[in-house]
C-alpha cells in the first residue's frame, strides 16, 4: 500500500539538498536550447518542470549509450582480461514522466532475461525513480493507448502529482522511494483527497485498440504494400530508437590497438541497414520497409511473446524526433484498422 503524503514546491529545494548531502546525484530534465535531457542538477530551479516530455529519455542512466564491458591487454604470450570498474553513483531520477518510469520495468524485463545483465542491474539497483504525473500532453503522447495513463505508478518509486500551483500529492510506492523521503521527512505533509489530484491530470485520447493488436500485426506480416507505404518516407536513421525509453538493442565494438583495448556496448537501431547485415553479405532486412516492420513487430508483437508485455510506453518521443514525421500512433492506428 502506497504511503500518501504531500510535498510543497518550496520544500523541493530542501529535499534536493538532503538527497545530495547523502551522496546521491540527481538527474532531472534540463533545457538546453530547444532540447531537454536528463542531466545532473543541484537545485529544483535548474529543472525544466514544464516540459511535456524530454527530448532524450532517462534510459542512459541505466543503459549508457556507450559503456565498457571488459578490457584486455596482451602481456607476452598471455592475454589479460579485466573487468572495468563498475561503481555507478547512487542516482535519483527526478521529474521522470510516468511513461518513462513504466519503461524502466520493460528494461528490467529485457536485462534480467537469462543471463541477467550485471551492468544494467548494478546501475538500476542504484537508481531511484521519482516521477511527476502529467498535467499536460501533446499530440504525440499516446500512453492511454498502451495501457498506461498520465498518472500511472508503474515503475515509479515515488509518484508526485501536482495538486495546485503550490505542491504535489506524493505517493511513496517502494522501499527505495521511502529511503529518499526519509532523507528529509520534514519536507512532507499529510495526504490530500484522491479526487483533488485526478482533476489535474492531462487528457490523452486513446488512438488504437491494444487488445488483440499483437495477433493482428502478426497476421499483417506479409502485407508488404502496407509496410512499404508506411515507410517510404523513413530515412533509415536511428533517431527513433535512440530517443526511445525502451529500445535496448546494442552493438558490441572492440576498440584498441594490437596490444590492449576495450570491448564496448553501444546503442544500436533496427532502422539501420547494417543492423542485420550478415558476414556473408546477405541482409535479411535489406529494405527500409522490412526494418520498419521489424520495429513495429518487435515492440507490439514479439515482445508480448517474449516479455509478456509490449515494448512501448506511448511517450511519443520517436514521433516528435523523427525528421520524416513517422508518427507511431498514426501508423499503429492505420495498422489496427487495415482491411
Amino acid at each position: 500500500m502506497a504511503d500518501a503524503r504531500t510535498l510543497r514546491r518550496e520544500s523541493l529545494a530542501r529535499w534536493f539538498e538532503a538527497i545530495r548531502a547523502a551522496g546521491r546525484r540527481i538527474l532531472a530534465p534540463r533545457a538546453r536550447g530547444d532540447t531537454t535531457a536528463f542531466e545532473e542538477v543541484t537545485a529544483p530551479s535548474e529543472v525544466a518542470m514544464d516540459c511535456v516530455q524530454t527530448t532524450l529519455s532517462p534510459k542512459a542512466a541505466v543503459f549508457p549509450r556507450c559503456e565498457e564491458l571488459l578490457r584486455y591487454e596482451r602481456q607476452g604470450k598471455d592475454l589479460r582480461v579485466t573487468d572495468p570498474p563498475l561503481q555507478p553513483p547512487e542516482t535519483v531520477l527526478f521529474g521522470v514522466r510516468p511513461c518513462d518510469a513504466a519503461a524502466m520495468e520493460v528494461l528490467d524485463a529485457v536485462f534480467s532475461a537469462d543471463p541477467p545483465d550485471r551492468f544494467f542491474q548494478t546501475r538500476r539497483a542504484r537508481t531511484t525513480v521519482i516521477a511527476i504525473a502529467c498535467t499536460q500532453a501533446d499530440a504525440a503522447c499516446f500512453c492511454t493507448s498502451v495501457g498506461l495513463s498520465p498518472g500511472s505508478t508503474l515503475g515509479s518509486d515515488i509518484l508526485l502529482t501536482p495538486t495546485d500551483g503550490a505542491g504535489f500529492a506524493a505517493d511513496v510506492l517502494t522501499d527505495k522511494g521511502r529511503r529518499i523521503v526519509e532523507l528529509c521527512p520534514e519536507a512532507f505533509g499529510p495526504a490530500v483527497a484522491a479526487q483533488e489530484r485526478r482533476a489535474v491530470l492531462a487528457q490523452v485520447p486513446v488512438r488504437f485498440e491494444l487488445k488483440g493488436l499483437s495477433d493482428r500485426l502478426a497476421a499483417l506480416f506479409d502485407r508488404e504494400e502496407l509496410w512499404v507505404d508506411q515507410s517510404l518516407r523513413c530515412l533509415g536513421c536511428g533517431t527513433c530508437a535512440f530517443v526511445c525509453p525502451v529500445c535496448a538493442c546494442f552493438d558490441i565494438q572492440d576498440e584498441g590497438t594490437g596490444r590492449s583495448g576495450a570491448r564496448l556496448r553501444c546503442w544500436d537501431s533496427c532502422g539501420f541497414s547494417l543492423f542485420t547485415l550478415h558476414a556473408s553479405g546477405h541482409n535479411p532486412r535489406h529494405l527500409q520497409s522490412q526494418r520498419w516492420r521489424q520495429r513495429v513487430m518487435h515492440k507490439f508483437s514479439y515482445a508480448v511473446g517474449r516479455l509478456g508485455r509490449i515494448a512501448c510506453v506511448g511517450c511519443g518521443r520517436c514521433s516528435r524526433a523523427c525528421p520524416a514525421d513517422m508518427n507511431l500512433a498514426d501508423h499503429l492506428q492505420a495498422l489496427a484498422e487495415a482491411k
Partner: protein
Amino acid sequence: MEALRAKARELLESRTVQVVVGHEQGSVPGRPRPVFVRKIEDVDRLVAGEGGTINLAVYLLKPEVQALGRPALVADPAALRTVLQLASENQIRDGALVALALDDGRLTELKDLAAIEAFVAERPAGLPAEDQQRIAEIEAMSREDRWTWWLEQFSRCLKCYACRAACPMCYCPRCVVECNQPQWVPAAAHPRGNLEWHLCRAMHLAGRCVGCGACARACPVGIPLDLLTQVLARQIEADFGVRAGTRAKADYVLASFRTTDKEDFIR
C-alpha cells in the same frame, strides 16, 4: 497549391511521371511531411510545403522510391541545387525527373537539367542572416574556445546518423563509419568517436554541400552541424570561385586540377 495539384494530376494522367514526391500535411501543423503520390485520387494530399524538415531530393536515390518509377520532385531552390549537384556527381541523368519548382508560392515546371540550372542561376543561394550571425559568433571565439565549443556540441551526439540520412549528398552505399575492416572511425558515441564522425562528415561534404540545412533540422539534439559545411562552402567559393549545386556538369573542386591553377606544387 491548386496549380501544384493540377500539374501533379496532369503529369500522372499523361504518365509523364509515375510518382510525385512532395509534401503533405504532417502530424504537427506547420510541419509538412514527405508524401509519394502515385494515384490521381491522392493529388489533393499535396501541399505547397513551406517549413518541411526534409530536403525532398534525398529520396531520389533511395531504392524504394526509385522502384516507384520516374518522379516529379516538388522542389524548393535548395532541392533544385541538390539535383544539380547529384547530376554533377553522375547520380542523376538528364531527364530522369521533372522538377516542380516552388519559389515564393509560384510553380514552374522544369523538364531538364538545363532548365534547372537557369532557374537556380536566378536565385543564388544566400546564407540566412541568423546563420551568418552564428558563424560570426563562432569565428569571433579564440581558437581554443572554438575547439572547446565544438567538442561540447559534438559530445551530445548520439550517432543516430539522422544528419547523414537526411543529407541528399550522403549517398554512399556503405558509409566510411561502417567500414570496419579496418574500423576507420570508432562506431561508439564517445567523445572521440563523435569528433571523428563530425570531422569526417564535414570533410566529405566540403564543396559538395548545397546548404539546405536538412542535417541540422534532423538532428534530435540540436547540434548546428550545418554551419561546418556552410563555412567550408564559403571558403571553397573564396578560394576556387565555385559553389556546389549551380552546375549539372562540374568537376569536384577538391578532386580535380587545371594546368592554369595558380598553385604550382603539382606541375
